[in-house]
């Protein structure tokens, strides 16, 4: 006998690798691939805006740097955060928008905005992965 209170249809799991790869390269791209256009658009708008604001504040990119533990954590972590923005990071480096690290609170905020954009994109990638694997609608 059919259960009248059956849960709504769950999305079919699909191959998550291209979804997560696109989500990394283009913020919100994974959601677009999964036909979540509204959410994908909002993610793209937020991550790209934060990244562009970071560039406009002349924020520096982090480069891997050795030394004591704290230096390694900050510089490698910052580099990974920058890298997580995908094409935005690669384009800005290739086109020469990589700023030198100079003193000043605005530049400092700019660097943090660049890393934060990457970290927000990691959240978007995880969300796209959850949708692609059927863990989330």
């Amino acid at each position, binding site marked *: 006998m059919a259960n009248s209170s059956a849960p709504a249809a769950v999305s079919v799991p699909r191959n998550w690798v291209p979804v997560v790869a696109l989500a990394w390269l283009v913020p919100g791209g994974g959601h677009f691939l999964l036909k979540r256009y509204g*959410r994908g658009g*909002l*993610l793209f*708008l*937020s*991550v790209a*805006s*934060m990244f562009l*604001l970071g*560039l*406009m*504040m*002349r924020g520096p990119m982090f480069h891997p740097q050795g030394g004591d533990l704290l230096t390694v954590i900050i510089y490698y972590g910052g580099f990974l955060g920058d890298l997580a923005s995908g094409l935005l990071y690669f384009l800005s480096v290739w086109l020469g*928008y990589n700023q030198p690290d100079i003193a000043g*609170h*605005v530049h400092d*905020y700019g660097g*943090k*905005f660049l890393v*934060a954009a990457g970290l*927000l994109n990691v*959240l*978007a990638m*995880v*969300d796209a992965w959850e949708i692609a694997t059927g863990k989330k*609608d």
Partner: protein
Amino acid sequence: MPRLSVTHFEAALLFAIFSSIVLGVVSKKTDRERLRYGLRCFAWFVVALFAVGWAMYLGHG
């Protein structure tokens, strides 16, 4: 590329806006819940901004 100069408050507010949008989008199940969560995150960012600001001001004596 135009140069942007912002105060501490403006930078923190911009950070709060975009972070709240992403946090709202990637969490919860319905659009209504996402909107509420995003707004709540933004409100807490602003509350924390003022709280930490006053704490630093008072801490400096």
